[in-house]
């Protein structure tokens, strides 16, 4: 089969009135392309009002009803991936068939919903026809490739397939039967013949019986036809009859029909004569029913029903090709849909997938179908070494398309997870770009990255959020993001800002956060100090003075506190020194004193203020020292 070489489509972005420049500049966006008029050779000096155009694929992602399709098929996809390898193949086949049916029912549900809304948007009717075609193709693929029915059952499945997709027969039959005199209805014979064409002999008999009861004189003719229809053998796959036995029986019946024709049994009624000719599988008669058949594949199945009901799968393609040619005639050329179906009848999976990819505007169908076929191990059997690569390629394309959508991107993650070769790297690249509109969304994205140990992405997202929070002066948020990012440098920076704020306002913000830092405090020295310093204030507030004192001292002696803040800390010690009872011990007081001297010598501050403070401190420390010495020297009696 020669390849369909399709020229790329051309879209005009700018209308003729506006386009004066020679060149189109562009820039890739998330899911779209930004295009603008420019001229790379000129520097400028033109008065104009140039436009910028946002161009994107006209994709189905935007339709809310199709989104349901994406959501539900995602569930089926994930379920399919979980099917274990070690189940025996018989059970697997039935599982695959049921999954295929699930997919199809999702397509049908979507189609029905679209049909209900039809008329509101022309876009929807377009989608309906595409979905109809998709379901038709998928159903055929299921019959031929997944269910792999053998001769005998094959025709039955094909009949079901045709019946499902030619549903107007039921409506018309109902209309005729419910009318006052069915036999007089203008569609009466059309209905009978349609039913016969679909092999629905019982129903055809039922409709025929309406006729028979009216005209006594021709009743024997109708009885004969009734007899023929009643005795038509239908293969029963679950029964005890073998295919050969069925074939013999069928041949007898076929000869019986032929005999009726030869003996002109139905000469008195041209409709019955037509039906009899159909029953013997007369091609010309079948072709005359073009309008009732409406498609070449209906013609194919009907033809097989009445000439080769025991058709074997490998022989299908010959009949398919000839049926199509006969039905379409010399002048009509096949549509892409026809070619796809023909490729399916020829069991050319690869061609089916390729032609579907070309014809459709969205990767949904080919990605899911190919994935299912790959699970059935059908792509490998074609001896193509890129079998599973093809599946991964299509799934990656589909999922990448989902990623640009503001809520569907979460579905895409699961698809990437099941692409062993490139899934992870694609996910890493694309998840970074998800806009972090809200904290909630950022946390959602983070969780996905954390679950997959994408540590660089985690760090990057946290850093972006921290930076954003800092810009908007939300220090608490910035700090918790830096902690999550494990970004010591940034945590130090934010801690400095906290401390700055404290010295400006005299109180801390975000107390909840600071009080509950826990081990995260150890991320950076400055952060540790901040946490401990806040703890000091808390202890003081709870009047746990000796603990507070110890903490305060350790902050200086353990060098956790930056030198620049020692003065502040010592000043914080003042109220403790001025308590009635002695809090700082002798040793602690000596340490404080040395800290003060250290501080005084190395930090040249504003002379006046500092010297006053220093004097105050020296005095307080000295007084404390005396009291401490006395206290410690007193023997308790």
């Amino acid at each position, binding site marked *: 089969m020669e390849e*369909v*070489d*399709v*020229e*790329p*489509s*051309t*879209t*005009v*972005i*700018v*209308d*003729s009135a506006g*386009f004066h420049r020679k*060149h*189109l*500049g*562009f*820039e890739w*966006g*998330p899911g779209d392309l*930004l295009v*603008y008029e*420019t001229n790379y050779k*000129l*520097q*400028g*000096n033109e*008065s*104009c*009002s*140039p*436009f*910028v*155009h*946002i*161009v994107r*694929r006209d994709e189905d992602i935007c339709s809310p009803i199709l989104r349901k399709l994406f959501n539900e098929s995602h569930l089926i996809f994930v379920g399919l991936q979980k099917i274990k390898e070690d189940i025996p193949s018989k059970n697997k086949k039935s599982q695959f068939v049921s999954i295929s049916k699930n997919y199809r029912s999702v397509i049908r549900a979507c189609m029905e919903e679209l049909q209900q809304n039809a008329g509101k948007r022309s876009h929807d009717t*377009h989608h309906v*026809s595409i979905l109809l*075609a998709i379901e038709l193709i998928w159903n055929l693929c299921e019959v031929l490739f997944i269910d792999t029915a053998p001769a005998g059952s094959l025709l039955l499945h094909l009949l079901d397939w045709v019946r499902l997709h030619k549903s107007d027969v039921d409506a018309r039959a109902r209309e005729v039967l419910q009318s006052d005199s069915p036999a007089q209805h203008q569609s009466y014979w059309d209905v009978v013949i349609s039913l016969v064409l679909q092999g629905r002999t019982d129903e055809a008999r039922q409709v025929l019986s309406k006729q028979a009861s009216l005209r006594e004189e021709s009743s024997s003719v109708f009885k004969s036809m009734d007899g023929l229809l009643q005795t038509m053998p239908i293969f029963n796959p679950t029964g005890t009859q073998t295919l050969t036995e069925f074939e013999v029986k069928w041949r007898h019946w076929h000869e019986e029909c032929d005999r009726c024709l030869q003996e002109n049994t139905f000469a008195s009624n041209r409709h019955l004569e037509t039906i009899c000719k159909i029953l013997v599988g007369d091609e010309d008669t079948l072709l005359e029913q073009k309008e009732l058949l409406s498609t070449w594949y209906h013609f194919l199945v009907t033809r097989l029903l009445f000439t080769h009901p025991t058709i074997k799968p490998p022989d299908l393609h010959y009949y398919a090709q000839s049926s199509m040619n006969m039905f379409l005639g010399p002048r009509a050329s096949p*549509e*892409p849909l026809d070619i796809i179906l023909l490729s399916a009848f020829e069991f050319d999976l690869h061609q089916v997938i390729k032609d579907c*990819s*070309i*014809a*459709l505007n969205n*990767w949904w169908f080919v990605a899911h179908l190919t994935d299912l076929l790959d699970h059935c191990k059908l792509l490998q059997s074609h001896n*193509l070494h890129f079998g599973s*690569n093809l599946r991964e390629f*299509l799934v990656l*394309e589909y999922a*990448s398309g989902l990623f640009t959508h503001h809520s569907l991107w979460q579905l895409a993650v699961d698809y990437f997870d099941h692409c062993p070769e490139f899934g992870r*790297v*694609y996910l890493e*690249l694309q998840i970074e770009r*998800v*806009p972090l509109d809200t904290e909630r969304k950022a946390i959602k994205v983070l969780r996905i990255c954390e679950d997959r140990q994408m540590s660089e992405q985690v760090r990057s997202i946290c850093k972006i959020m921290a*930076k954003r929070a800092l810009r*908007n002066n939300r220090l608490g948020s910035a700090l918790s993001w830096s902690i999550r990012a494990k970004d010591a440098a940034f945590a130090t920076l934010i801690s400095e800002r906290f401390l700055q704020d404290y010295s400006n306002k005299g109180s801390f913000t975000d107390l909840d956060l600071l009080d509950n830092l826990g081990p995260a405090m150890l991320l950076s020295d400055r952060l540790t100090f901040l946490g401990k310093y806040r703890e000091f204030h808390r202890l003081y507030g709870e009047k746990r003075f000796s603990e507070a004192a110890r903490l305060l001292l350790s902050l200086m002696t353990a060098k956790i506190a930056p030198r620049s803040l020692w003065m502040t800390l010592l000043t914080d010690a003042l109220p403790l020194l001025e308590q009635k009872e002695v809090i700082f011990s002798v040793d602690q007081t000596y340490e404080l004193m040395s800290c003060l001297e250290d501080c005084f010598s190395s930090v040249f501050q504003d002379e006046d203020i500092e010297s006053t403070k220093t004097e105050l401190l020296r005095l307080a420390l000295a007084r404390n020292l005396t009291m401490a010495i006395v206290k410690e020297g007193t023997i308790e009696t």
Partner: protein
Amino acid sequence: MFVAKSIAADHKDLIHDVSYDFHGRRMATCSSDQSVKVWDKGDDGEWHCTASWKTHSGSVWRVTWAHPEFGQVLASCSFDRTAAVWEEIVGESNDKQRGQSHWIKRTTLVDSRTSVTDVKFAPKHMGLMLTTCSADGVVRIYEAPDVMNLSQWSLQHEISCKLSCSCISWNPSSSRAHPPMIAVGSDDSNVTYSGKVQIYEYNENTRKYAKAETLMTVTDPVHDIAFAPNLGRSFHVLAIATKDVRIFKLIPMRRESANSSGPTKFEVQVMAQFDSHNSQVWRVSWNITSTLLASSGDDGCVRLWKANYMDNWKCTGILRGDGSPVNGSGHAAALSAVGVPAAAQMVVGAASAGRKKAQLMPG
């Protein structure tokens, strides 16, 4: 099929460059009217201009965003021989209500003696580094050692390319397997100097950039150059806009000796070459996953190129900027094969190797 939505960009002269930010929610445009405009995408999906200011005293050629890890930072370069770094500051509340934001200049880089033709930030794992190239043939790499202080930039490297430079591209790969790599394109029209694309690589030992490769087969002026995002491949992919669109594959070769002195040697192959524009190609750019390459040419078209999983490249769409009647658009009936919107020829088997359409060279 493509659908387009237009925004009046409101510049008073030609737009030379447009740049999306990392998340695609903001964009910057720059123009010959010497200004830069910043646009924000609202919750309603509409773009609003939130800042517009004069940036240079000459045409602004390019504008680019830094990675959001560094905050909201833009860089611009101009015909006025300078490049500048801008930072957005959080404004007063009434500004927010009016939907306006303020950008202030953090630094001006004045080292170039000629028009600065391109400005790009290096990949974020290298820190906050800015690169410029000028018509005087020098590529300059600046670094801001303190990312919280954007007014301090130091010139770390000056690479003399000897040919007038028009474009630069950093290899975005952050893999430890290869050192930082930058490609420089030259639009020098003198054909005696062949090799209009040079690739420089950072050497850990010498702490300098050394030339690793010159693409000698590129002899015509180069207008744009772009490394593809690396998908964990061992080789690099570089797209070039010259008299046609060319995609090169650079395969690092194993070092002969354990002593890794000197830059990496590469085996250079041509993955694809397209002359469909039939004229000069001015811009090339990759999408995020490097599955699509877009090019823009003298014929006033933007073309999209895609490789299938067999690495066969095809054109998958054309955007025209003129008034000739649209062909192949409109709503197709079910499955009528109009154009090649998303898929097309992608699922092509071995049988496609003999195609005549695109000039493919095996690679």
